């Protein structure tokens, strides 16, 4: 719904939100460059309609929604491509990345089902409440609570030593 406030400044919204949104999508994708590309694309789409988007009550929510929609589409495409590549190259050696808690958290997130992962990332990194996630995902509040519970349990079991260290 359009607000009566003066329109938001694109540069200011970009400066305030770009990095935060990128971190969220990095946690979802596991690929920082991909996350940066998606967030930039979301801002390009917002800029194209900025005269309208800037008058929304929450222009950031619009950008976040577009970025997440793009992320979900890309993730589905890349998952299909990855699955194909794995079938083609079954003996590809696994190269271990830097052994840090941060990388392990991103890797652990990657093992969660997409909906659980989105809920966990939006809750812990997007600072969205259960109600806000339910509204965004168009599901019941109880469903989000269930996603978060299962997500937490799965992450905790994978990250137990790291969780104790921090």
């Amino acid at each position, binding site marked *: 719904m359009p607000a009566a406030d003066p329109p938001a400044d694109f540069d200011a919204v970009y400066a305030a939100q*770009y*990095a935060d949104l990128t971190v969220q999508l990095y946690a979802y994708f596991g690929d920082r460059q991909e996350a940066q590309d998606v967030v930039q694309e979301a801002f390009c789409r917002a*800029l194209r309609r900025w005269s309208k988007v800037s008058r929304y009550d929450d222009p950031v929510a619009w950008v976040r929604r577009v970025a997440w929609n793009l992320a979900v589409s890309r993730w589905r495409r890349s998952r299909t491509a990855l699955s194909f590549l794995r079938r083609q190259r079954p003996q590809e050696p696994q190269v271990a990345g830097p052994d840090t808690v941060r990388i392990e958290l991103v890797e652990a997130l990657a093992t969660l089902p997409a909906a659980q992962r989105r809920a966990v990332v939006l809750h812990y990194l997007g600072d969205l409440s259960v109600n806000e996630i339910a509204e965004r995902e168009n599901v019941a509040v109880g469903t989000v609570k269930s996603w978060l519970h299962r997500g937490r349990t799965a992450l905790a079991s994978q990250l137990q030593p790291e969780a104790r260290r921090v």
Partner: protein
Amino acid sequence: MSDPLTPLFNDLRAKTLPQVQAPGTEAARRTVHRRATVRASVVAAVVIVGGGAFIVDQRNDYQNTIVPASSVSPSASGVAWTGRADKVEVAAALVPGASHADVMDAFDQDVGIEATEGRYRLRVGCSGPTALPFTILLNGAVDQQSSVDCTDPGEAREYELTMPRAGSVRILFSSVGQFDAYALKLTKI
């Protein structure tokens, strides 16, 4: 009992944020303008090809059958409402050293320029089929609204602006001026 995952995510955020390199708003503007130009070119090409096919079709009809005389409206020619082919060059020629030049598409275009405190002259040139309205915003606040009467030979207007403090000058071109080509330059005076 505190959530043991919270510090892990805080750590992830704290360590990833410094590594994020934003391409910047200027890159976003260039992308949007490039796409708009490509779209406008595609539309123009479709109109020209469609117009050519229509003329060829009409000629064939005249050769084969007797048809009643028809009047072709100016808009069907594809030229009357898209303006001349070199309109971007015409607009740019009216604004020597223009920092931005583009063709308007079916949506508003937002040009942002960083500016320090002081007085500025904004020169806007336009070539195209219709008047191009726009709003000038200084640091997000509307300063003035105006319009350039675009014509095929092109027109230019100048505006004096006073920036109370460093920030951004935004020129918001209305999609009413679709197919107009504009060029602009902001000069400190």
